[in-house]
């Protein structure tokens, strides 16, 4: 391990969002006796304004979870969150907000670089220059009802039934009309001459 860090105290890193670059602070807190080197991860959750209704109300129900439940924290009104006393290593941050899907974030807290934080979205493998988490997509928990649609009705079994009936009722007579009357007559004759098909007519021996 880096020998410098043995002597240093709690080193805090803040991702300064407003100025859009990293800045480092060595906090002046006293040395915590007996505890390992621990760092602070600060980040921000931002939900695009276009997809949100009632911004503040939603914020109060967002949870930020470190390492699958090791730490749970909440968002401040400005969307910032902080995990304190995080040891150096590779961590996982997940954001849970109803109505949104956030990718889990792989966060590397470097011991060598005084707790420098590197963040990568694990779903898209996109690395973040700053720890600003945005939803990958909004989530809709309900199926949307299809608006009233004539085609949908027509395609349903009931509609098909009605359609078939319409065909039978209106088109069949038309078809019958198109047949040549002579042909029709001959066909009818033929049918009459054959009479009722009986067993005897089917058996060749009786002929």
């Amino acid at each position: 391990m880096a020998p410098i860090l043995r002597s240093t105290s709690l080193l805090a890193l803040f991702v300064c969002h407003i100025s859009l670059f990293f800045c480092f602070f060595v906090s002046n807190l006293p040395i915590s006796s007996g505890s390992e080197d621990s760092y602070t991860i600060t980040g921000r959750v931002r939900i695009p304004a276009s997809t949100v209704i009632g911004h503040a109300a939603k914020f109060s129900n967002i949870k930020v979870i470190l390492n699958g439940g090791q730490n749970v924290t909440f968002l401040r009104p400005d969307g910032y969150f902080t995990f304190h006393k995080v040891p150096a290593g590779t961590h996982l941050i997940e954001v849970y907000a109803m109505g949104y899907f956030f990718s889990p974030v792989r966060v590397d807290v470097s011991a060598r670089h005084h707790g420098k934080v590197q963040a990568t979205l694990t779903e898209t493998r996109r690395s973040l220059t700053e720890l600003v988490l945005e939803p990958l997509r909004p989530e809709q928990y309900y199926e949307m009802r299809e608006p009233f649609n004539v085609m949908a009705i027509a395609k349903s079994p009931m509609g098909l039934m009605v359609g078939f009936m319409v065909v039978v009722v209106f088109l069949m007579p038309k078809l019958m009309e198109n047949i040549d009357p002579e042909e029709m007559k001959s066909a009818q004759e033929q049918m009459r001459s054959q009479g009722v098909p009986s067993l005897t007519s089917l058996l060749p021996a009786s002929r």
Partner: protein
Amino acid sequence: MAIRVFLVLVLFLSSAIVSFSLYEDQAGLADWHQRYIGKVKHAVFHTQKTGRKRVIVSTEENVVASLDLRHGEIFWRHVLGTKDAIDGVGIALGKYVITLSSEGSTLRAWNLPDGQMVWETALHSAHHSKSLLSVPINLKVDKDYPITVFGGGYLHAVSALDGEVLWEKDFTAEGFEVQRVLQPLGSTVIYVLGFVNLSEAVVYQIDSKIGEVVAQKSMVFPGGFSGEISSVSSDKVVVLDSKKSILVTIGFIDGDISFQKTPVSDLVENSGNAEILSPLLSNMLAVKVNKRTIFVKVGGEGKLEVVDSLSDETAMSDSLPVADDQEAFASVHHEGSKIHLMVKLVNELDNVLLRETIQMDQHRGRVHKVFMNNYVRTDRSNGFRALIVMEDHSLLLLQQGAIVWSREEGLASVTDVTTAELPVEKDGVSVAKVEHTLFEWLKGHVLKLKGSLLLASPEDVVAIQELRVKSSGKNKLTRDHNGFRKLILALTRAGKLFALHTGDGRIVWSMLLKSQACERPNGISLYQWQVPHHHAMDKNPSVLVVGRCGSDSSAPGVLSFVDVYTGKEITSSDIGHSVVQVLPLPFTDSTEQRLHLIADTVGHVHLYPKTSEALSIFQREFQNIYWYTVGADDGIIRGHVMKSSCSGETADEYCFTTRELWTVVFPSESEKIISTLTRKPNEVVHTQAKVNTDQDLLYKYVSRNLLFVATVSPKGAGEIGSVTPEESSLVVYLIDTITGRILHRLSHQGCQGPVHAVFSENWVVYHYFNLRAHKYEVTVVEIYDQSRAENKNVWKLILGKHNLTAPITSYSRPEVFTKSQSYFFAQSVKTIAVTSTAKGITSKQLLIGTIGDQILALDKRFVDPRRTLNPSQAEKEEGIIPLTDSLPIIPQSYVTHSHRVEGLKGIVTAPSKLESTTHVFAYGVDLFYTRLAPSKTYDSLTDDFSYALLLITIVALVAAIYITWALSEKKELSEKWR
């Protein structure tokens, strides 16, 4: 034949990807969600004249919540992390709720009206210590008094406005334990009182502005302290000495320490050990001695004087200032089925301000905690309300001699769940009238039609919802032929058994577990004791409730047998032994009582029920009973068999000794057991055969004796982020529990726990963390029987040259082969369950409880080892989904839709009588129930089936027939005239 038709149907239906999905207006139709908070630890009232009256509570489930004082509803609540136990709550500046948690290292402020977190401060902490929070009562709103927090060996002053630490003072000196931090009202001096090695009292006087020690005094007390302490005023505390027989008053006026000893025997005759009770009363002390509560007045010079004495079963609140420098406190005691609430002045105990008697349900047990609040009535007199916490964890508000509201908070800590049938509908049972007239019926259906055609106005939607709930008759207390109405039996940690109706989640009955041996047995587990079906039909079904006197596993157990229909306890017994494991045996006696074995800590097993009939059944199967124990600490799994009857002084013919049959020892330096799992014993498997696409036959290895074990390397047993991928590996085993044979071993390098698994039929699905990819992974393992794989040839089957009828024995070495596949999964998981249906025909869905406290239904076909990148046409037809590297999360397949089951702990599934449908019950801090149809309801019409449309179509058809008939008559007539 019918089954075959079913199968065809299932295959047909499963060819399309079915996801659980719901329209918004269907929410709440088959599901319900109940919100709880847990057993209240602290309560702070916020009852200003303007605005809504509320009470802020923190609970043992790490919940901080704001409740409506009028109705008991939750305004807002937050469930903190599992390791973030709340130590104190307060209201600062009249607008922020302050919580201190994580042993005094995290201080948070929440906005009082909406619960939005305002600030969060991590406080320095060095070691475990008491954590104390003191939020100053604001006299002037504009002035920001700092919050003083003691925790982790440091005293902090924190600004209530923004959470900034103003100063902190180190008290981590060796052996020094801070006991009290006191600040006289309006003073700038903070007294910190502590003990060094429990023999020396030290008082620090600190300037609250800058945090500097102004003065320090210490004094050795030769007798030593026991650590029990009560502060009676801002400059005086009372402590018990190490023998718990002398009360020591420590006064520290202006930093000068003075001791004043008063033996308890001077106050009460024949006194035993004394105990200082927690309520804070001004200039008064409540001491429990000789099973009575005595009130000791603390005089100006530390003189103690007994002023009152009450029976033991009294709960008290802290004292509260009422008008004219008077302080009052509330006490509640029991008398039969009634409780008496009294509010007395601290200075004049004879002056009872309020005396109320309230009828109380016996099944709530005793009063545990009382929180009192006063208000000024219109006639300027003082009114009081009391919030009480009962033994069953329920929360009640008492006001004006009545229970204003109550909350069943016991349900926030459910430990075990089972389901039970409702009674059969008999002639006497009246059936609720559902539909009144044909017109109303038609109107309802027209409304529904409008809803499904999206023509309904918002009012119509509400009407449809109401109508649906009403018309389904789902809340009746009788069995229905679909098996949708059932009872969910939930056992809580407080030892209370609740029966909830699946229709609307109401409590049908509840019963508090009782024991002669101890005051408050804890609830552990629930078993089906008697499920009458063939004979003994006239008997009511019953469940076995297993409890324990105390939290230690060696504590004596308590058994209770409860009638499911009535909720009455049939019998209960204090069994003399401990309960480590309960094994339901696959045998029942003539009254359908299931035989159970209970293993204790000394290695004996005890047979229940204790009847000679049960004993004779058991003796017959004596050689065939095997079970196993998992020693997670030493990494050994042991298999046991019965040996003989117990001998010795407490010989009882229902007690048996056992011997070890096999052991599986995991090397402790490289593997640590983190998870074990077996199949559900009551699971139904429809078929053993599985037909492949190429008309090949596979035989599932369906054994009830399979144990899934997951181990990780000891380094990887910690949290994510504590190990590198090289240091951690995860190994899973499938072990036969009869012979101890390891049937399968699979190792995942660079992976770690926690492992959440589900075991059903012949497959296991487990969820773990892959450190290399830094993502969660899900792996499926399917086990197939190799020995039967030869039985494919039709001729062999016809000529009888197969081994299908050969008996299966668990002793033989099974030839198995496995198939497995892994996928990424984008979320942490709390628990996994699988749907179960009556006959096991319907395809299965995994129910994944995510860390966001939602439940995701994932079709089993997504975790099928046969998935390939490019499935052939035949495979596609069979419904094999092309392989993807991660499992999809489809928002519409969250069965909890827009709800969260906060603090999710477990998911229970139970089949309904309708093959397509399964009951799902999830519990945690919240409860959630829904009915699922994993392959859609192929065996019944859906709820939104439009009978009206059908009717209209039929009417229209009949009309058309008549019209055309009339027309053709007419036409024929005119034809004949021609």
